[in-house]
């Protein structure tokens, strides 16, 4: 029981990070460092709550959230790829736009800069409790998880399939490896990059929807709290490889869950909240350390002399 509770908590923590990591991964493979996942997630979370409150239609809220994130990603792609802006600056701009825009809408239309808390909010589909009794430990951990969690778990292998087993994936990776060469063999580079960015928007939209719609059913201006950046760190930690990236997302989610557990032991909440950021930073350092050790050339005659 203890184990499956902890596993459920790990899944909780991991899902948004995993989706953000996959979002960052797919653009990384097209050679775009995507810091804008954070902003796309935030917009999705806001739209999910705003539409759900207005219509009480859960499917509509979910679709609008994902669609909004895709539109944000296309705006980012348009500026960074078509207009060739620096994609880190443009990505940070998108994040500022997302934070400023949602706050502006909160103040202007809801008269409450503190957040949006509907009295009623439709519930999304969760795995019915008791339906997975037959599976020890894992079953109870998956029960009561939202369908977005299941989707995220499925998207990890699917993204590997996309990248390594489809012509689209080949083209996308070719663009990421060598743009000139890709162009020379007739790959439409701009279109490929826009596809990667749009896919990241879709994944970021799922992450934002999960954050807002799974249990909380409200929106707060700083709700994403850097999960998009942690996802990016997971991607870099995993070297842009689907399985390693997924593993890194689970690792950071594990530390998040561990932090939650420590809170029960009266550890200060700030140190608990710090756990995934610390894990991501240290993880990145370790990953680069190993890469540096691997790539270090064999010692030759000292260059100084």
């Amino acid at each position, binding site marked *: 029981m203890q184990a499956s509770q902890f596993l459920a908590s790990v899944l909780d923590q991991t899902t948004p990070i995993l989706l953000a990591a996959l979002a960052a991964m797919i653009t990384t493979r097209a050679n775009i460092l995507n810091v804008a996942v954070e902003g796309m997630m935030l917009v999705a979370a806001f739209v999910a709550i705003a539409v759900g409150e207005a219509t009480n239609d859960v499917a509509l809220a979910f679709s609008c959230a994902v669609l909004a994130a895709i539109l944000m990603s296309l705006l980012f792609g348009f*500026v960074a790829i078509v207009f060739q802006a620096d994609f880190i600056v443009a990505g940070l*701009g998108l994040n500022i736009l997302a934070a400023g825009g949602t706050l502006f809408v909160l*103040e202007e239309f809801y008269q409450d800069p503190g957040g949006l808390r509907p009295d009623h909010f439709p519930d999304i589909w969760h795995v019915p409790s008791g339906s997975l009794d037959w599976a020890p430990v894992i079953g109870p951990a998956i029960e009561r998880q939202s369908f977005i969690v299941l989707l995220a778990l499925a998207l990890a292998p699917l993204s590997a399939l996309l990248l390594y087993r489809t012509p689209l994936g080949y083209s996308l990776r070719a663009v990421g490896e060598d743009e000139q060469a890709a162009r020379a063999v007739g790959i439409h580079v701009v279109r490929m990059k826009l596809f990667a960015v749009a896919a990241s928007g879709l994944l970021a939209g799922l992450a934002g929807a999960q954050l807002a719609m799974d249990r909380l059913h409200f929106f707060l201006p700083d709700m994403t709290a850097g999960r998009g950046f942690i996802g990016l*760190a997971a991607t870099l930690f995993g070297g842009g490889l689907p399985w390693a990236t997924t593993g890194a997302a689970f690792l950071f989610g594990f530390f998040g869950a561990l932090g939650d557990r420590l809170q029960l032991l009266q550890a200060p909440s700030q*140190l608990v909240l710090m756990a995934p950021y610390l894990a991501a930073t240290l993880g990145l*350092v370790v990953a680069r*350390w190993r890469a540096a050790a691997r790539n270090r050339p064999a010692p030759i005659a000292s260059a100084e002399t």
Partner: protein
Amino acid sequence: MTGETKRLARAIAGPVAIVAAVLAGGFVLVLIISSDPVTAYRDLLFANFYSRSNFALFVNRTMPLLLIGLGVVFSFRAGVFNVGGEGQLYFGAMAAAAAALALPSAPFPLGALASIGAAIAAGALWGWIPGVLKVRLDVNEVVSTLMLNFIALLTTEYLVTNPLRDQTAYGAVSFVIPRGAWIPEIPGLPGATSGAVVAVLIAPLAWLALFRTEWGANLRAAGSNMRFAEAVGVDAGKQIIIAMLISGGLSGLAGAFYVLGIGHRFEQNFSPAFGLIGLTVALLARLHPIGVLATAAFYALVLNGAAYMQIDTDVPRSIVGLLTGFLVLFMTARPRRGLIAV
């Protein structure tokens, strides 16, 4: 002479055009949502000059943006995409407050100087970490500085809600620091910290150091082409680390000036994302130290102006965040026909 002026004019034209376009777009938005758009925009742009106390607040707001912006100039000129200004600022502010509280009986200049020293060291440390990680292990500095921001903010929040918490005050604030650590106001401008004067003086010094010394040339060489720099005998890694120390130190100094000259205590929510705005300001100035003077003042003007606007009219201040988003999003965009020179 004319060539120089022309180059300067061209360098200024781009940022001015972008700012004008965003302000114009903002005015259209205000026209749509507000019943009193003229008052709103007048407040946004001019309310800082309505009274001496408004102007003092404007000066105080310029100070951190200017220092962080100058720090960003150093790091970016050395080729490091330092997004960690916020964390460096917070660590500096916390170090200043902690040092001042640890030395309750230090007389005036000593207490302040010790606090400033501690703040610069703390900020520089928080810049040094991503610098070293980039040089030694090729860890991406965008991600490492973003992570370090969260770690710094959570660390200061822990400190200010536990050991340094002033129980008698509302919110997450530290005890008031002893008088010996306060830095003076600008004479004739009550409430405005003299730290702002120091910040303004640092801008031309930064320009001299970067553009009129061999050291600055080496630093910029490391930033523009690392391999070339190494080939002509510049230790690019060392330049990068030095640039990050300066960058973090300047942000830390901003934190010290805030605590010692404005808040007189550490407040967890003292920064409305100064780090990100400082970055915006530096990029808007095309990474030119003198340009940062202008862009930092402009942003301070608009940030404070928005607050007056919200009081007087029905336009929310977050419109500045919204417009800043568009500004940064499009700032480095290159329209095909060179409408805006980059």
